[in-house]
């Protein structure tokens, strides 16, 4: 792939960063349509229960922690990387935070502030380690984060001897975990804030453009003078930082460090990001898509439970949607590689269609 093509593509990305532009990209539309259809079906089947305001707010509340992690994961996957360690980093950060908050004694908000800061720092440090190993030590991201998945969880178990710390400050649990402002869960408002910041960062800043550039063609990004290694470390650090923040939110929601839990968090978040149209080959994706991708499994779960579908079918449905989403993505790429039918589609998908990019990782 020539550098000049790459250059054009970066320019196209820059030129199209409007909400309308992103919505025009097919995957987002397609997947948003799927979500709307799912909501409509359950709405028809169980109008009073599924569409009840409280149920919708509960869905939002239960998706909030994953939403925060999905923001970081979207950046990482756009660079054609992956972060499997988020669930363990979440647990590790919540352990550090809970441990210190326990030692301080429950003094209300100051305790919460210290705990939050520590959760962010410990999550961020795991992210820096991931990023350094990926960018500088050149270990594939899959392997690095598979390793830190074990290490972070093991470290959390060492610190606690495997026993959950069950003493989050009351104010954290009451106001953040279960509090509501104007009927909306506080934890969801916090998550929404993070998502909006993450979306602005991804679609409207130079940092975001470089993220896309690295994922589209890392070599080209280096040649045009982007400090790829540094950017990668920053991106993994961001993902770790957000996982750490999610750890603090998890403490607020559950009041315990859930050391034994969170084992499927990484896969659920990755599935959500991929369903939302972010390509695992890198270079493509959107924050809006990730959020829609997150809500599809959440809405399915709630709807299936309320309509009384067996839990075994829920996992089948989510898996099928994941494969369908990637299938559509691949079809679009193939069309683009052949020259594309719709000009917009083709231009947007052109750069990462190179097989050389897929081989990197």
């Amino acid at each position, binding site marked *: 792939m020539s550098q000049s093509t790459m250059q054009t593509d970066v320019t196209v990305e820059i030129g199209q960063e409007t909400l309308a532009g992103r919505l025009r990209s097919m995957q987002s539309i397609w997947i948003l349509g799927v979500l709307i259809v799912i909501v409509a079906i359950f709405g028809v089947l169980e109008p009073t*229960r599924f569409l009840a305001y409280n*149920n919708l707010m509960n*869905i939002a509340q239960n998706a909030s922690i994953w939403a925060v992690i999905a923001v970081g994961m979207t950046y990482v996957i756009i660079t054609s990387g992956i972060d499997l360690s988020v669930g363990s980093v979440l647990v590790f950060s919540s352990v550090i935070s809970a441990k210190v908050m326990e030692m301080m004694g429950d003094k209300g908000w100051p305790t919460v502030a210290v705990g939050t800061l520590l959760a962010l720092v410990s999550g961020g440090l795991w992210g820096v380690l991931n990023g350094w190993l990926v960018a500088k030590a050149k270990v594939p991201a899959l392997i690095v984060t598979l390793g830190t998945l074990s290490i972070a969880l093991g470290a959390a178990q060492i610190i606690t001897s495997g*026993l959950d710390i069950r003493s989050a400050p009351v104010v954290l649990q009451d106001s953040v975990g279960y509090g509501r402002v104007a009927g909306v869960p506080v934890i969801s408002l916090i998550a929404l804030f993070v998502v909006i910041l993450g979306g602005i960062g991804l679609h409207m800043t130079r940092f975001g453009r470089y993220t896309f550039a690295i994922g589209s063609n890392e070599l080209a990004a280096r040649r045009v003078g982007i400090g790829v290694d540094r950017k990668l470390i920053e991106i993994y650090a961001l993902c770790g930082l957000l996982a750490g923040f999610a750890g603090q939110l998890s403490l607020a929601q559950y*009041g315990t460090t*859930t050391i034994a839990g969170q084992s*499927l968090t990484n896969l659920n978040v990755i599935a959500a990001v991929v369903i939302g149209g972010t390509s695992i080959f890198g270079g493509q994706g959107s924050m809006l898509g990730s959020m829609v991708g997150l809500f599809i499994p959440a809405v399915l779960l709630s709807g299936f439970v309320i*309509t*009384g579908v067996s839990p075994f079918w829920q996992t089948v449905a989510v898996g099928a949607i994941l494969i369908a989403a990637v299938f559509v993505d691949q079809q679009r790429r193939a069309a683009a590689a052949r020259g594309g039918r719709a000009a917009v589609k083709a231009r947007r998908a052109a750069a990462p269609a190179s097989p050389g990019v897929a081989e990197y990782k």
Partner: protein
Amino acid sequence: MLFRRYAIFGAVAALAIAGCSTASSNGDSAGGSGGSNKTIAFVQGVQGDEFYITMGCGIDAKAKELGYTVQTQGPQKFDPTLQKPIVDSVVASNPAALLVAPTDVQAMQAPLEQAAKAGIKVVLVDTTVNDPSFAVAEISSDNVGGGKAAFDAIKQAKPDGGKVLVISTDPGVSTVDARVKGFEEAANADPSFDYLGVQYSHNDPATAARLVTSALQKNPGIVGIFATNLFAAEGSATGVRQQGSVTANVCPDFVMW
């Protein structure tokens, strides 16, 4: 030793029995839960665990007798972060009663309190939470006594004593913690037995098998293993078989619910 083989086959037989003949009735009652007051929700600790399926069979049978419908749901893993969204949705579906096996004493406290506050009668089955005062009933066995009974069984099989190990699921699960406690107290009280402590299998048979094979590698003198639940027992039995030449007895989930 013959007993060893017997114990393992005993465990396997227990597993086979656990899958009751009406297992297919789980959650197949589709669609509308129309007359709201005739629906009961059952939230398992984890899907696909024969312990909960057996429990579900009992609930189904009794419910049918009384004219109730049972909706069974369960998380993919024994994990409060996966169980809470299910409980929230069950509450939204407004059943007459909610039978639930909480996956964590702390994390499930608030969600279940909210369910009770929404006017649903909450019954805690098997496991419990820190403050179960909101529940209309709690059904559980004497788990401390069960742990002790497991130790007595090992003692009966191995009167000479030796090293004993516990394979549990995860810390913070009320029932298995109590079983471990009962076993630990009984084992420490008997000077001829050397209690090696607990290993946690995260409710995964494969992990339990790995823990047991390594433990036997390190301590070939282990004479008995107490597996605190079904998955732990399945894995422990596998581990003992893999290790072959040893003479350990597995005491599977003695405390049948």
